[in-house]
């Protein structure tokens, strides 16, 4: 077995200390070691975005990140995002737009939507589509997800 290492980082705002194997992915650490199952495994290869988390304010695929590399960083998962005002807005918008079907992809979309809005607070439809390119959804056909993010980016336009 690979070496075990103690790491310390901030997880959803709280300091976390844990031991991980050197070859473990951040996704495995979150789900199997820390029990945060909102972050999903969809492919393990960076292709689906179900495992999206934020590290130092930017989204990454947690399945591609070495858990040890979390040391000293600021990590946010869907559990953390959901407890923020933006997380609540996104949640409401996805729900109201019918953007959730099986829901397996949704936490990843939530995380990535946050990134899109950070880059483009008033994101255009095309910017949203490009921003969500790394997230696969097999159920919805994406339109309602795009609508939902658009509604958060342009709150007045959609409140008519």
């Amino acid at each position: 077995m690979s070496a075990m290492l103690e790491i310390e980082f901030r997880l959803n705002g709280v300091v976390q200390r844990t031991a991980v194997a050197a070859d473990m992915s951040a996704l495995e650490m979150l789900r199997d070691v820390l029990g945060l199952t909102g972050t999903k495994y969809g492919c393990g290869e960076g292709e689906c975005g179900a495992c999206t988390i934020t590290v130092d304010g930017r989204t990454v695929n947690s399945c591609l990140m070495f858990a040890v590399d979390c040391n000293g960083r600021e990590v946010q998962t869907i559990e953390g995002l959901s407890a923020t005002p933006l997380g609540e807005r996104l949640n409401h918008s996805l729900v109201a737009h019918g953007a959730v079907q099986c829901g397996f992809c949704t936490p990843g979309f939530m995380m990535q939507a946050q990134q899109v809005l950070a880059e483009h607070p008033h994101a255009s439809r095309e910017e949203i589509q490009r921003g969500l390119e790394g997230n696969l959804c097999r159920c919805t056909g994406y339109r309602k997800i795009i609508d939902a993010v658009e509604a958060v980016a342009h709150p007045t336009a959609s409140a008519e």
Partner: protein
Amino acid sequence: MATTTLERTNTDSLIGRRIPKLDAPDKASGRTRYLHDINIPGQLHAKILRSSQVHARIVSIDVEAARRVPGVHAVITAADVPWQRPIGVTKDHLPLKSDIVRSRRDEIAAVAADTVEAADEALRLIRVTYEPLPVVATSAEALAPGAPLLHGEDLRAPGRGGALEVVHPASKDNVAMVHEYRQGDVAQGERDSAVVVEDVFWLHYVTHCCMGVSGVIAEFDPSGNLLLYSNTQVPFLHKREFAELLGIDPGRIRIIQPPIGGGFGSKLDIYPFEPIAIFLAKLTRRPVKLVFSREEEFIASPTRQPVLLKLRSGCDSAGRLTFRSVETLHDNGAYTSWGATTPFVMMQTISSLYRVPHCHYRTRAVYTNNPYAGSFRGYGNLQATFAVEAHMDKLADALGMDPLEFRLQNAQDPGETTPQGMHFRSCGFKDCLRTAAERSDYRAKRRANLAHWNDGNPIKRGIGIASMLHVGGGAKMYPSDGCGTIIKLDDFAKVTLITGASEIGQGSETVLAQLTCEELGLPIDAVTVVNNDTAITPWDVGVHASRTTFIGGNSAIGAARKAKRKILEAAAPTAGLAADELDLHGGSIVVKATGERVQDLGKFLRSLHFAEKADLVMTTYYYEPPSVHLDRQYRGDVSAAYSWATQVAEVEVDTETGVVRLLKITAAHDVGRVLNRLGIEGQIEGGIVMGQGYALTEDLLVEGGVIKNPNFRDYKLITAPEVPDVDVSFIETFDGEGPQGAKGVGEAPAICIAAAVANAIYNATGTRIYALPFTPEKVYRALRGKSTAPTWPESAA
């Protein structure tokens, strides 16, 4: 369409409104616990060793080193479960293979260990030696004289008494199943024809790609009762099958269905991983969890049925269809799952989408060493529609007729009973055709595009139309096609709706809640739906055939009406009115004629409950649709209703690269009635994009029995930037049997996209492509005359 508030209709009926899914907030916040997220204390992790060979005799399996890995509790092969029983639609294979492997997914051994890592380590240490057998890579090869037989030996397994018996007899050829249907006299049809066209089509391999990979958790209690956490779409049928497999009473099996990360038909059959997890749980006496990797999901879950299809069709000079003759080879793969039965649906499209007097349809499902096909949203209909709609365009062209006119002339009308016995009580087909054509400006655009064929611009535009017919009121494939419901009202007028109908992400839970509340005059948040535990829920045949809204909906309405009658009858004496003069509305008992409030419903229920003759409001209902089984000639009205749709695709073709972009889909769907607008839009948009993937990007490359692209990197799902504009119209035909007039639509939206896109590519370029998918290289080759159209193999003559 982007409104966040609920659209108020003039009445406060719930029907037709945009009702968000009840389970959505939990899902979006990551709180929902899918099967993958469930961990049972003491559980072991299981992994399966699959064949490294496509076709081989197993000479030896050595598991000794694997058993010595620390943390490994069990390593099993077929020898450890001599009592295993066959699975599959024709019971043609055992979960663990002992003598011959017939595909790369074949299960040879399995491990249960404390950790996934230990299980993986053990797998690596299992040594299997093989003696390779010749590979049968295509259905044409399988039918060739002297082809190796895939199931040339009797399959034996212990029967009820324990003695070995033949469970699947040796087959003398590689034909797993034959389906043949005739109506009228095709020869006569040929004689009546002014135009006849014949082509061979190839419909490729694709797979479900549920975002949540497959998995199961199995656990036995000390008395040998089995608890299964499973994502099956048919829990009650599988209960029986598992019982048979284990030789125990079905009553001792309980299936809990945690939320599922997508179904689309992939969980309709039992696949070996489930029995294997059960074997491991039985042998280790520990809960066993088995979850696939994505690669395993590609290799070891079912595919859509790949089909080689020869279609011959004719029409007379007035543009009336005269006959249709179809022969197909279904590449069955190594074993028989539901894919082999897609002819049930395919022949409906062939015989009854348009009026055709004479028809012949024949399918042979042929064993090969390829992956095996299961059921997949649309169930053969994408394949059949692709061919039929190509010929509708070709025939119209040959006559010089407008393709829309040609279709309208042959389209079905309400009231029709087709020669195959399907009775169209409601049918909005012609409205679908007209609406989609008008809203997309089909006629004008089609003509305009033709003018650009030779204008020198490498970028071409095209528009294409296609339609579909699909069961929309269940499909009577089993003795019952019914669904049970239990309704319980509590002291505060909150409803628990206990339904047999499973939720697989399609939103049935919300629709059922809505239908119930509509009957009981309650707001949508007054309901809790329980639908995921066979120990609690009443029987249902399962999620397939777009049946849940229709069958589960009628069942819920039945139970709600009984509850309502019970309440109103009890309330009548106090109100001093007859029960039928009362109604339930806005959480109260009201006077029907005036809407005047008589009493708060919760208060009344409490009074009922604490009365002298105390009573609780609980009702049950079982709905069985008025459909019938197909007879031996494949005739019969199998569904209680039929859904229709027309879709128009607009594409842009880059003739210098072969890239086809789907720009817009204009769809018109006869859905009976819109119940939940938000939900139905989601189903349709999702289906359209699934159809887009089938048409343009998804291609499971199977060469010599080996899947070349078992990953999302090279198996390309559509992504957000690629989605087309969508314009959906709903044609409401208010089906007499449907719940509030609705019909099922779950499968419909994916069905005609590929057919419409093929017609659009032809309209753009003058090139017709007979093999899916339209990936850039394939399209480019076709445009340059560098591709060979599919041909009918001599061996299948």
